[in-house]
């Protein structure tokens, strides 16, 4: 808690600066909402249909692969800190661990999971 408190104070002051800018804007700026002004921007055309369009499943795949690798990195962090004590034992363990995940990586690569065309 001792060293987290200054961080929280800093984060809150950032938030307050942001909010106060919004408040100053609300006081100073004039507001004239015209119907044309409020149309979402689409290079001059009137937007039609739903804007939350279906997107490529590739983005979802990337998110899944990210999850695997992020978990890998999260496991590697504590290893890096106690590396001195574990020495060769920890090194070999991590090589095996990374190798297992590399198999998944190569599989994704071969199956075209990382290809964009």
């Amino acid at each position, binding site marked *: 808690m001792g060293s987290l408190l200054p961080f929280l104070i*800093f984060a809150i002051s950032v938030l307050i600066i942001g909010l106060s*800018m919004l408040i100053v804007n609300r006081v100073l700026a004039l507001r004239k909402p015209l119907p044309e002004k409020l149309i979402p921007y689409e290079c001059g055309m009137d937007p039609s249909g739903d804007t939350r369009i279906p997107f490529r499943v590739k983005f979802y795949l*990337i998110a899944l692969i990210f999850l695997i690798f992020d978990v890998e990195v999260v496991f590697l962090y504590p290893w890096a800190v106690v590396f001195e004590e574990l020495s060769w034992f920890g090194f070999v363990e991590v090589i095996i661990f990374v190798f297992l995940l590399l198999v998944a990586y190569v599989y994704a690569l071969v199956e075209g999971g990382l290809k964009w065309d």
Partner: protein
Amino acid sequence: MGVALWSEIVILVAVALLLLLVALFHVAYLTYAERKIIARMQQRLGPNRVGPRGLLQPIADVLKLLHKEDIIPYGVDKPIFHLAPLVSLVCAASGLALIPLWDTFVLSNLNVGLLFLLALSSLSAYGVILSGWASNSRYAFLGALRASAQLISYEIAMSLALLSVVLMAGSFNLQDIVKAQMESPFKAYIIPQIIAFFIFMVSAIAETNRVPFDLPEAETELVAGYFVEYSGIRFALFYLAEYFGMVVMCALAVTCFLGGYIGPFNIPGLPFFWFLLKLYVLLFFYIWVRATLPRYRYDQLMGLGWKVLIPLGLLNLFFTALLKLWL
């Protein structure tokens, strides 16, 4: 007891506000420096009307944006639309509190400082995704999709690069990392970890959505990407978040690779001199890259992240571990 605690909190608030004001000043003049440097590189003059040599330009910009009408288009998801710029700003800026600026001056000396900074940089993806989703605009939606895929891809490369620094220093604490560098033979990790530094800088540019990886904004195809519907002061908040992100990333690179606040000799009276000098060099590099390189194509971007940087990062980690075992 209670009085002591409260006085401590008052001092903390004062120091935090001071740091924030200095940081805001830096961010404001970073925009000026960027415009001026890029103008000079392109044989233009850059801003030169407001004040001597255009030095008051950032202040004029802020005043103008404060006066702008706040347009909220129809169909937006209002609570999320209002929240997104603040999320972006807080996540980008508050990382600054964790950077050790001097031997005895670090606002919040966390034992897991490095992890905390990485977590904050991942959280800033939320600002992007929320704004793109809430905006009710196709450009914003596409920009947010691209941005989120890009952010998570380069996140891994960045973590791997920092992992080898943690391996060398044996600690997450940023202050300890700086001290470990001081005791290492080269005085800075950039020499043994040049590959990690390269990976880190490339991913830092991608994480802050800057040229040549500014696909989420790509003004020539997506207009402005995820913040196309934001105008006036809300746009300014996103803009601030982007530049704060640049400053924090460069400060992290200085701390982890360039030896932090430690210089070849001490300059009396100017305690932050070396830190700021290194920071400015890296920021200049950022701007230089923007003036030099054209934008990547999206498949090239993802290919670079997944097929080059991540394997390279893993290899670098492997060799760092081997080196550490043998020495």
